[in-house]
């Protein structure tokens, strides 16, 4: 099944980027700290960081006694005065000394304690630990490791472990920029039919036959939300169709900036449909900024005017429930579109058709034909093609590997695909 998916999804736009992607992604070796013998500490500069940090690894003390606690000590010279910088109580025996300054030289050693007690170990200057003071006093023996050093923390110029992410991002960005420039140069980019838009055309036709108004809500967010912009793009197409059919359109909004933009959009649509005179400003009217006040007013409008078609395109939140319920009560056809994950279930259950998440933005790109939106949409599709191929390839390799564990090449090929998406 995975192989057919792998084959079907390759189409003429995707495969060019695909080949370039895989060829560029050479394997990335990840450095592992060397192993350690007996009870000793190893200090090294933390790799791939901006300096100011020394990493310390030590092997756990022989009998992992109850409440074992390690005291990390640092000194400017091998025999110099050791000053405790941390009391570490953690199962993975390591510590990062983030107070080390770039360029200075340090020496480290670690002491193992049976249990932390107020004033137990002599040099310990770590704070009196009141909570464990409540625990019973225990005999204390302090075993120090050999001194590790000299070590100084330096800043690296390129974080090698993130090379794979760097390449993936370069490929995706190149694809997006390529398609935006293609769209700008006027090349026709193919976007599939969005089922929701067909449903909208029929719904507007139905309202015209019944001679009842159409209600459009652009969501309760302001113009800075990309969902509101997509909603107004769809409003432009609705206004064009409505202008031709001469049906009444009602757009109550909850932001003044959205009101002015919506009015301009509808005026342009009416002019484009050749009916500039039948446009009037109070098609779009401001209600209130407050969420529940807005929904109470919209409810009133719906009950009074009984619109045949209700369209909700934009950012909706908890008030979507009340609006969808009133729409069902007056028997209107309801079509919604939002990218809010929490509201999608209610729209899908209550409305006749719903544009789900990205479909709202795809519809806006499809309708506006605007180069930036179209180019990004195609660029994102390249990303999806790469993702689907990686899944198909990974699944195929890993299944074969688990079927035939003997073959080494299958193992490290699957491991290599995994490294491409390694995150660290």
């Amino acid at each position, binding site marked *: 099944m995975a192989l057919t998916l792998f084959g079907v999804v390759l189409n003429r736009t995707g495969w060019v980027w695909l080949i370039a992607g895989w060829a560029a992604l050479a394997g990335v070796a990840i450095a592992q700290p060397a192993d350690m013998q007996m009870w000793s500490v190893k200090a090294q500069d933390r790799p*791939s*960081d*901006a*300096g100011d940090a020394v990493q310390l690894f030590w092997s756990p003390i022989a009998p992992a006694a109850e409440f074992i606690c390690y005291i990390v000590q640092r000194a400017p010279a091998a025999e110099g005065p050791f000053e405790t910088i941390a009391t570490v109580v953690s199962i993975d025996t390591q510590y990062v000394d983030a107070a080390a300054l770039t360029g200075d030289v340090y020496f480290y050693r670690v002491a193992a304690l049976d249990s932390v007690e107020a004033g137990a170990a002599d040099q310990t200057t770590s704070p009196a630990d009141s909570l464990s003071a409540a625990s019973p006093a225990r005999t204390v023996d302090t075993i120090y490791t050999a001194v590790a050093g000299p070590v100084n923390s330096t*800043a*690296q*110029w*390129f*974080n090698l472990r*993130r090379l794979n992410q*760097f390449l993936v*991002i370069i490929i*995706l*960005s190149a694809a*997006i*920029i390529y398609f*935006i420039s293609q769209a700008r140069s006027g090349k026709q980019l193919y976007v599939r039919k969005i089922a929701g838009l067909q449903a909208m055309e029929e719904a507007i036709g139905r309202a015209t036959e019944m001679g009842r108004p159409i209600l459009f809500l652009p969501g309760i967010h302001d*113009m*800075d939300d*990309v969902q509101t*912009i997509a909603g107004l793009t769809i409003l432009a197409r609705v206004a064009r169709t409505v202008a031709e059919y001469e049906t009444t359109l009602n757009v109550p909004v909850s932001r003044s900036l959205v009101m002015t933009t919506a009015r301009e959009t509808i005026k342009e649509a009416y002019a484009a449909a050749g009916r500039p005179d039948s446009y009037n400003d109070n098609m779009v009217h401001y209600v209130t900024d407050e969420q*529940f006040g807005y929904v109470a007013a919209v409810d009133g409008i719906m009950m009074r005017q009984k619109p045949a078609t209700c369209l909700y395109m934009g950012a909706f939140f*908890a008030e979507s*429930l*009340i609006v*969808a*319920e009133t*729409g*069902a*009560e007056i028997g209107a056809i309801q079509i919604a579109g939002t*990218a809010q*994950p929490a509201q999608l*279930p*209610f729209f*899908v*259950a*209550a409305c*006749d058709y719903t544009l789900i*998440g*990205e479909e709202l*933005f795809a519809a806006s790109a499809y309708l506006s034909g605007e180069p*930036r939106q179209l180019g*990004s949409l195609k*660029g*994102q599709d390249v*990303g*999806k093609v790469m*993702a689907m191929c990686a899944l198909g390839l990974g699944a195929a390799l890993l299944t074969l590997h688990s079927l035939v564990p003997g073959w080494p090449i299958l193992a490290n090929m699957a491991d290599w695909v995994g490294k491409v998406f390694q995150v660290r």
Partner: protein
Amino acid sequence: MRRQIPLLITGFVGAIYIVTFFIPATRFVETIATDWILIIQAFAIWLGALNLLKLSIMKLSSRKPGAGYAAIVIVCFLITAAAGLAPITRGEHFLSDHNYLAENSTFEWIYNSVYVPLNATMFALLAFFVASASYRAFRARNREATLLLGAACVMMLGRVPLGDAITGFLPEGWTLSAWADVIMNFPVLAGQRAIMIGIALGIVSTALRLVLGIERSHVGGD
């Protein structure tokens, strides 16, 4: 000029966060930028509060029908702010005592007795709206909606003890709550992952357009 410089700033600051991710040595620049963002975001929240105050004052002076409510907004704002800023003079010198939550401070009293009930009850109303919407709006009108409502009912029953009581006849570990767990950890996880990857690619392309200055809407562009 008013539009060019903000675009350059957006591109430059965006580039900082991308470059420092790959070149750790430059991370100090990112620390400074992050510090500035914390302060600018703080002023942005202040802007929200002061903007509400400005709107209320304008509504109050314009004698429109909602003027009374605007007066309440202003009075409550001043009372809360006064209670909160009381420690200014309390310390030995100006602004030395920061603790606006000292024992039985009026600020905490206002939070407990006014802010908590209002905020909590406003969202509690949604329970009523969900119930009435379930009764009147949620219909299994097509295959997708039927699948949705079916999964929702299994989830609602599976996540309360009643689910196991009803399906008690099934062996241990196979009752309704196990079904709910399996639905969450396999199909829902896969569906959410598909949505998450789709949204991530969308955000990456929008962010790229902003950083490269292709997108201008945030500076009032075309």
